[in-house]
């Protein structure tokens, strides 16, 4: 096909079963370089399961193939992952600097941080608009918006072959949401980064995504955002025809 070089992540016939139940079956999806593909669907439709499969955290059938921007196949892709609500122990004495350094530096963080590592962590945080003062804070002390920003900085180092955003702004205030998405769109444009965005909020999807896919244990419909939004399947799933106007 002509668009082979555009294709970053190719999901073919992916299926997941858990305790005998079919969570996902025959999922076929392509994520292209430089696009934001929105994954929409109801709770329990299998969105988070699909992300876990892409992360290699649960067994699945079928195949997932990754390509870089030049079309060459990547065996072990680097994936950036910004989870919805990071589940972690709020009392853990891990600082932002500890976390970012543990990701990038070799020097063991239990002995402290080398100057270069601290500078690199500062740069990574500032790139996503985070204040350098956050570095000394413990993860459990961060606000929702601050934590999302740290997670994004973490996800973008090293530059990932695929960026997964799972409801990334659910704990972020309104101005923070716009800043977060501006940044994500910037990464998409500058680095031609392929991005998979899981979101409940259709207004965010319309505004920031380039393509969309409706998931209900398999891909019901996918394509350009506006087209997908107007399909009967999406209108029915999100109750867009029921009385009110489309989502505000």
């Amino acid at each position: 096909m002509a668009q082979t070089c555009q294709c970053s992540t190719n999901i073919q016939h992916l299926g997941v079963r858990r305790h005998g139940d079919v969570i996902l079956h025959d999922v076929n999806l392509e994520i292209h370089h430089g696009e934001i593909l929105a994954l929409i669907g109801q709770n329990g439709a299998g969105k988070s399961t699909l992300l876990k499969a892409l992360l290699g955290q649960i067994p699945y059938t079928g195949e997932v193939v990754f390509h870089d921007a030049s079309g060459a196949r990547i065996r072990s892709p680097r994936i950036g992952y910004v989870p919805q609500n990071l589940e972690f122990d709020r009392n853990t004495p891990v600082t932002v600097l500890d976390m970012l350094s543990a990701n990038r530096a070799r020097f063991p963080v239990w002995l402290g941080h080398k100057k270069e590592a601290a500078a690199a962590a500062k740069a990574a945080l500032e790139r996503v608009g985070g204040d350098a003062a956050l570095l000394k804070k413990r993860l459990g002390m961060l606000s929702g918006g601050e934590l999302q920003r740290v997670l994004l900085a973490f996800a973008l180092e090293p530059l990932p072959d695929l960026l997964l955003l799972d409801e990334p702004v659910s704990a972020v205030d309104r101005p923070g949401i716009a800043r977060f998405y501006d940044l994500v769109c910037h990464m998409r444009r500058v680095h031609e980064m392929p991005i998979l965005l899981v979101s409940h909020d259709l207004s965010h999807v319309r505004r920031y995504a380039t393509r969309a896919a409706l998931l209900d244990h398999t891909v019901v419909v996918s394509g350009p955002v506006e087209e997908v939004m107007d399909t009967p399947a999406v209108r029915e799933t999100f109750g867009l025809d029921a009385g009110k106007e489309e989502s505000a």
Partner: protein
Amino acid sequence: MIEGLYRLIDTLLPFEWTEFAFMKNALLAILLITPLFGLVGTMIVNNKLSFFSDALGHSALTGIALGVLLGMDNYLVSMLGFALVFAVGICAVLRSRVSSADTIIGVFSSTGMALGIVLLSASGGFAKFSAYLIGDILTVQASELKWLLLLLVVVVLLWLFFFNRFLLASLNPDLAASKGIPTGVYQLAFMVVVAVLVTATIKWVGILLISSLLVLPAAGARNIARSMRGYHFWSIGIALVSGVAGLILSYYAGTAAGGTIVLVAAGIFFVTFLLGRRRA
């Protein structure tokens, strides 16, 4: 080598309690064991695996029983063998996620203890091995110290090279997986380290106290630490101080060293708890 260390102790600590060779050996053993416990303990607390270290201690009883049944001279081999089987078993059941971690580990823990008691009582006498329950640091032989040193060196090397990845895996497995860290392998490796550590020192620390000694220094450090470096500094420090102070106190009070050391560590824990609350 060991004579030199003895002379050093005599010069630096010219006290009554250091006059005996067994006290010198115990002191040296504590200087090797406690930093080890402080270092590994931080990760046990991070991973919420304190029950796991407890279960491993209990499994040692079954390990000893197997050694008796197989007619071994050194129970270390059978204990270590069973502890590793135990660790791999817990790991496998944990990964299947059929039940919550504390339930799974609790089941393994009581099984290991009960099986050990049944097998030992069937083969003639549980009483003979009850010394393992409390342990006795004063029975450390000079020849055993080099093995403790080796253990310390190996763990420090592991912590130098793999700590960052361990940390991310303990923070959140999905996040670690996104960076290509095989979290399952790391979890298993960590459990094996704890299994070796517990088995190697159980004779001196005792089944009932081993997990307290692993967990208390790290738990105390966590109350006051504000970074990973502080966490480890305090954990190792608290472990060392409680080890040495507990040994000296036990000598003058005529109490069991293991229990006294744990009590000192518990005392320090409550102090840090209050300090941490005031700072928060």
